[in-house]
């Protein structure tokens, strides 16, 4: 995705990423690349962010597209592995499972960063994020099979939190 | 080959739906029932898409999209109801 840095465009394009996403979704919904739909989609993608500016108080900028791209593929790969692991755990005997709750200390402070981290944790190996403490310091996570708590936390921090810190440190 | 695979897939997803209904009726807690409903709508998307493949028609796709959107809203509303005691503030 493009990251326009020119402040001049802010009046007309308050949220460039939202505009791009809306445009793509319009074309996907109509399942076409006809010129008419491209133009209509573009008009809608320009006007909808303008009309809904008050719903998007903070501006989101993607400072580090390459890191996001790499993060995306790591997550996709992990989802596939996670599913095979979870399928094995589910089909195995129940008494072998060791479920447990644990807390992860959050280093990402940006709200969007926290929600992306929580979503990633839910989609990847054997863990579901359950709750964020009110002060946004800890994330409560449930694991289907908790072998070694410190290892799991370490892995989540290294694999998923580091790139998110890199992406969101600027805003 | 494709027809055979589709028939086996119908059987498997149908069985999955049956399991979900068992959990929906048995409970034992409210979140279990919400989870069962959530899984039922995701599985019905699967069965609709499979039926679309079987009939070789892309018509069922819109229904699948609508079920996805409405099901998500339903799950969120039910969970919010458990969290707060009412849905709208």
């Amino acid at each position: 995705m493009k990251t326009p840095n020119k402040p001049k465009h802010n009046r007309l394009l308050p949220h460039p990423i939202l505009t791009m996403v809306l445009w793509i979704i319009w074309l996907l919904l109509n399942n076409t690349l006809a010129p008419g739909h491209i133009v209509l989609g573009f008009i809608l993608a320009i006007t909808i962010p303008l009309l809904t500016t008050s719903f998007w108080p903070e501006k989101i900028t993607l400072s580090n597209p390459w890191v996001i791209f790499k993060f995306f593929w790591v997550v996709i790969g992990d989802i596939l592995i996670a599913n095979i692991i979870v399928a094995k755990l589910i089909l195995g005997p129940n008494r072998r499972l060791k479920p447990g709750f644990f807390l992860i200390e959050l280093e990402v402070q940006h709200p969007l960063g926290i929600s992306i981290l929580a979503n990633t944790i839910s989609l990847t190996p054997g863990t579901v994020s359950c709750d964020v403490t009110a002060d946004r310091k800890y994330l409560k996570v449930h694991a289907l099979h908790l072998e070694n708590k410190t290892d799991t936390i370490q892995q989540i921090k290294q694999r998923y939190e580091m790139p998110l810190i890199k992406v969101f440190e600027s805003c | 080959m494709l027809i055979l695979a589709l028939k086996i897939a119908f059987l498997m997803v149908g069985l999955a739906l049956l399991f979900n209904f068992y959990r929906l009726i048995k409970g034992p807690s409210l979140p279990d029932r919400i989870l069962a409903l959530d899984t039922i709508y995701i599985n019905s998307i699967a069965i609709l898409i499979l039926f679309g493949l079987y009939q070789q028609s892309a018509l069922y796709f819109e229904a699948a999209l609508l079920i996805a959107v409405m099901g998500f809203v339903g799950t969120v509303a039910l969970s919010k109801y458990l969290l707060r005691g009412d849905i709208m503030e």
Partner: protein
Amino acid sequence: MLENILAIFILIGAFFTLVGSIGLIKLPDFYMRLHGPTKATTLGVGSILVASAIYFSQSDSGISAHEVLVTLFLFITAPISAHLMAKAALHIQTPQSQKTQQK
């Protein structure tokens, strides 16, 4: 050849969907049951949708990409609904399995 690939995608998808539901009836407490549908079922339906996208791309006129929309939507919403359900369950203190390790 293409038919075989499609068949494999469909069977993998149906298998993961079934595994998710088996988890739903088999596992002992709510928090563990949550794992089945969020992961296995989402990937299962995603796989079936990929098969559908491939099928309609090669049979009809032009590329059929709107299945991607449902797949993306499911992958974005599944963790959110799981998170909300877990939060609700914690809030009303749904009983946990005896073995659950705390903190």
